[in-house]
């Protein structure tokens, strides 16, 4: 596979979201959105994609903002993985997402890559997806004259497929502020220590009661073990109202392993291995999430 120079394209730099949507509507299937470029530019170099037009969102300052108020945390779609990794807000309020940022790609990619791009590329192993699903985040999608909010767990429809319409842009990710006594952990299994897709990704977000012993709410999301990132509702239900301990985490791990359906033709890991790792890493993530809150 010979990596070549980029093919020719027309480059557009709309100054506003409205201008970007207008371009999308006019150019239709000939156009692609350019955010960080770390997915689309290699694909264009390989000639997997040859859009006649690139609509760059880099000039739209409003799309980069990371903000918090009493109710919500909002991550602009063009916020880079590196900016979010350095953000005290993300580290403090969204540790499950912060864990994921630290194990994605490399420093040189994280400087450029965006959270919007990671979500819209929609690969089953996307590392920001399980944490955002565990946080019950929503994606704000803007179209010409339309605006809708889609929960992340409903966003993905298949490998590299999502509900994002051709005339829409993902503008921001919205997360309800986790309440007190909440915390989470993301564990990514790789064959090496960096620069790899997840073989298995497990995100667990817990809310404990005031005594810090009983689980009041649990969300568990798995990546790279199904055509899309998925939740593990049976495993979650096992934890609610119970005291988190090793036997309970072991049982929840088994339940999570049962619902995953890894691809059978992967060159990177077998079905049996991934299923086995889901069981172990779900157990580990539950216990680590519990410790991170109850410490």
């Amino acid at each position, binding site marked *: 596979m010979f*990596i070549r120079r980029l093919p020719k394209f027309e480059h557009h730099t709309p100054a506003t979201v409205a201008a970007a949507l207008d371009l999308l509507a006019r150019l239709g299937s000939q156009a692609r959105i350019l955010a960080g*470029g770390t997915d689309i530019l290699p694909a264009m170099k390989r000639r997997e994609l040859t859009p006649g037009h690139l609509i760059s969102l880099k000039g739209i300052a409003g799309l980069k903002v990371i903000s918090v108020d009493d109710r919500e945390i909002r991550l602009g779609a063009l916020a880079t993985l590196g900016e979010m990794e350095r953000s005290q807000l993300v580290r403090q309020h969204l540790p499950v997402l912060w864990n994921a940022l630290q194990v994605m790609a490399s420093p040189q990619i994280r400087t450029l890559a965006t959270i919007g791009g990671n979500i819209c590329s929609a690969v089953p192993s996307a590392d920001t997806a399980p944490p955002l699903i565990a946080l019950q985040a929503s994606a704000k999608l803007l179209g010409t004259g339309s605006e809708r909010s889609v929960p992340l767990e409903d966003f993905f429809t298949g490998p590299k497929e999502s509900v994002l319409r051709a005339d829409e842009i993902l503008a921001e990710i919205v997360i309800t502020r986790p309440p007190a006594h909440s915390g989470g952990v993301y564990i990514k299994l790789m064959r090496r220590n960096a620069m790899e897709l997840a073989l298995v990704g497990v995100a667990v977000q817990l809310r404990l009661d005031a005594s810090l012993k009983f689980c009041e709410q649990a969300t568990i999301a798995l990546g790279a073990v199904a055509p899309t990132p998925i939740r593990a509702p049976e495993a979650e239900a096992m934890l609610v109202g119970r005291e988190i301990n090793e036997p309970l985490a072991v049982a929840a791990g088994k339940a999570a392993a049962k619902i995953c359906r890894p691809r059978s033709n992967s060159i990177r890991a077998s079905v049996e291995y991934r299923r086995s790792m889901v069981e172990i890493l779900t157990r580990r993530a539950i216990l680590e999430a519990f410790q991170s809150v109850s410490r």
Partner: protein
Amino acid sequence: MKQEEITLKVNGINYLVNVEPRRTLVEVLRETLGLMGTKVSCNEGECGACTVLMDGRPAASCLVLAIDAQQQEIVTIEGMSAGEKLHPIQEAFLKHGAIQCGFCTPGMVMSTKALLDDNPHPTALEVRQGISGNLCRCTGYQQIVDSVLAVSQKAAGNS
């Protein structure tokens, strides 16, 4: 393809150039500005040979369109030395045998600069994380890690 007139600020110098939108930053640095220190290896952002600093952060210059690199401070390996005087990172690499074929070295030095500017006294693990986006096929990395630790310790000794 229509060319655009852009300004790139590289190693403190403003360059006014005409480029097609499809030219990546590494292509323009090497072929238009003649700054050959930054290397093209995998050309898809996986190897780190093309690493430059953009506003102090390490970036894969093979994945940045040159027209998108405006209004940022770009530093390449050429910007590390001051004339004949090498940067302490470069001196440490020489002293500790961190350079064999030398092809990964510019990228390694830029990643090291970014790491130490952010974290002046990294642990060995943090050094390895800092260069996790840079591949070296020659050294086995240990001499590179030793060099970075040596620079940070020397700086600690001086402060």
